[in-house]
């Protein structure tokens, strides 16, 4: 099998970075996330490949928080849309965990299927290569295996690396993967090493039948109680590897400007507020319920897979201790009066 010694890791990043922008999990100042390798400052930043995961998922690589769409020029009554900003620059996400790759696969479903292909997403995604970091040990909030993710052999990976301690076993999965493997071929050694063994999950979450059961639970009183501690901030949505909702807005300076899209959050009151003032989800509870139903029921109904990937980030960041695992458990236990 092919092996990349950890000592050669930074050389590998440098090589890969010649032909693509490489995003690597790192602690940067007060934040951990996937940041461009070229921004890495060894005296200030820390590589996070051996951490369970980082706070901000790599979704911004294929779906940036703010993305310019097209230019606008106006002159009197004339309007020109001369330039659109699809970004075809090659990118590599190095060391993504299975849960985060599942998030990107969910976005593939959204942006590339059901009648329309989103040209902005497609441009980035086509030129994006994912090098997965297989997980052999789960964290306290991890439950990806309950959400259709295989942590040791994640779907959607172009290459899978497996941490054996001193080196990474390098396993090429796709054509895109072969291309990046070729770039660092001379850094890889042929060697037999013992693969790590997967440890059992600390959390056992039973999602079986939850989507189906939720269909009959829209009016269940449990939502009132569950939503009460929620302050309706958007933190859970912004750290979520699969939340994809966006807003489209315009920025003008005089007669020139551009239209852009930016992440939006279903937790905000403004999100569904109509021009005439009506709002189908004006109440905090309604927004809370919609978010969890979207994750656990609606997306499953539409795309046949849950939108929650079991990464546990929302559990770790929620200022008021809302825990999606407990919500799934409560759904399982709930009695429905038909």
């Amino acid at each position, binding site marked *: 099998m092919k092996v990349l010694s950890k000592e050669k890791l930074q050389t590998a990043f440098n090589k890969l970075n010649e032909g693509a922008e490489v995003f690597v999990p790192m602690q940067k100042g007060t934040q951990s996330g996937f940041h461009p390798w070229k921004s890495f400052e060894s005296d200030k930043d820390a590589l996070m490949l051996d951490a369970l995961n980082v706070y901000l998922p790599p979704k911004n690589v294929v779906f940036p928080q703010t993305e310019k769409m097209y230019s*606008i020029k106006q002159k009197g009554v004339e309007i020109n849309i001369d330039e659109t900003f699809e970004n075809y620059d090659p990118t590599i996400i190095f060391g993504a965990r299975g849960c985060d790759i599942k998030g990107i696969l969910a976005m593939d479903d959204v942006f590339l299927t059901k*009648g329309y292909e989103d040209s902005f997403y497609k441009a980035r995604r086509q030129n994006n290569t994912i090098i997965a970091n297989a997980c052999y040990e789960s964290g306290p909030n991890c439950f990806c295996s309950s959400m259709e993710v295989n942590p040791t052999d994640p779907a959607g990976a172009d290459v899978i690396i497996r941490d054996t301690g001193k080196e990474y076993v390098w396993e090429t999965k796709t054509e895109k993967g072969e291309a990046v493997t070729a770039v660092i071929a001379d850094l890889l050694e042929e060697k037999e090493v013992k693969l790590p063994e997967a440890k059992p999950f600390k959390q056992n979450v039973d999602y079986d039948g939850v989507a189906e059961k939720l269909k009959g639970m829209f009016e269940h009183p449990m939502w009132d109680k569950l939503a009460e501690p929620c302050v309706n901030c958007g933190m859970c949505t912004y750290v979520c590897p699969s939340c994809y909702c966006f807003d489209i807005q315009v920025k003008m300076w005089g007669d020139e400007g551009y239209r852009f899209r930016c992440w939006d959050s*279903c937790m905000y009151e403004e999100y569904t507020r109509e021009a005439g003032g009506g709002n189908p989800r004006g109440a905090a509870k309604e927004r809370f319920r919609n978010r969890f139903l979207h994750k656990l029921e609606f997306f499953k109904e539409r795309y046949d897979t849950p939108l929650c990937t079991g990464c546990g980030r929302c559990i770790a960041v929620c200022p008021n201790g809302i825990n999606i695992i407990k919500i799934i458990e409560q759904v399982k236990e709930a009695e429905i009066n038909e």
Partner: protein
Amino acid sequence: MSDQDQKCTCNEQPLVPTVVEVIDIIDRTPDVKSFFVKNVDGNGVPFNVAPGQLAMVSHVPVGEGMFSCTWQEEQEHLEFAIKRVGLLTDELHQIEVGQKIGVRGPYGNGFPVEECKGKDMVFIAGGIGLAPLRSFIKYCFKHREDYGKITILYGSRSSADLCFKEELFDLWPKQSNTEVFVTIDNPEEGWDGHVGFVPSYLEEVSPSPNGAIAVTCGPPIMIKFVLKSLEKMGFTDEQVITTLEMRMKCGIGKCGRCNIGSEYVCLDGPVYYLKQLRDLPPEW
């Protein structure tokens, strides 16, 4: 749906509008204007629409909004009847003929014009809600022999707020086997027509549910009571069609906000049989 169903023509870049020219603007009421647009080269339109489909109208430097696009017999221009309710529509109401704006679409499913063939049609609208129904009504009159009796019931706050008066009072009543009923909310000097709310007038007129399809659009509160009246009159959930309004940004089922349950109204709707809506969370 039918062969009338149209797909977005800008498939390569579905979020980027096509620039068109406003060739005419008609005041429909004090706060509703119809905007007619055409390709900037003066030839035709960037896309055709089926009755009930939507399109995103972009006053490019200000913003975009989703509006019902009127079905035209000759697809020579696009028409949008737009009520002034917010920032974008305020700005749109100030533009003049010759202004370039953006459009993208068409979006959504449109009315099931084929499935309705052979039926008596009952159209019930309030205020600007007549705009989407007008497409279907125009389509029925174009294919008059395909549909049975046509009943149109329309109401608005005052006589000044009645949209499409020429059609209401002149064109449509002249059509064969067609009845048009118009009502306003409050009595008014010089108005000798019906006064009262749409749902109660509907019960008064009481069109037969036998072999009929009712199509309704209007303010949410009106729809709520119209649905009750229709039920009382014997219309089943399979015989009632409505078209929904939700806030939309992308129009192509991606951006998230117009969902009702697992449906995206911009893509899967906006036209639904009441039967379909009963299966969705009551957030419409």
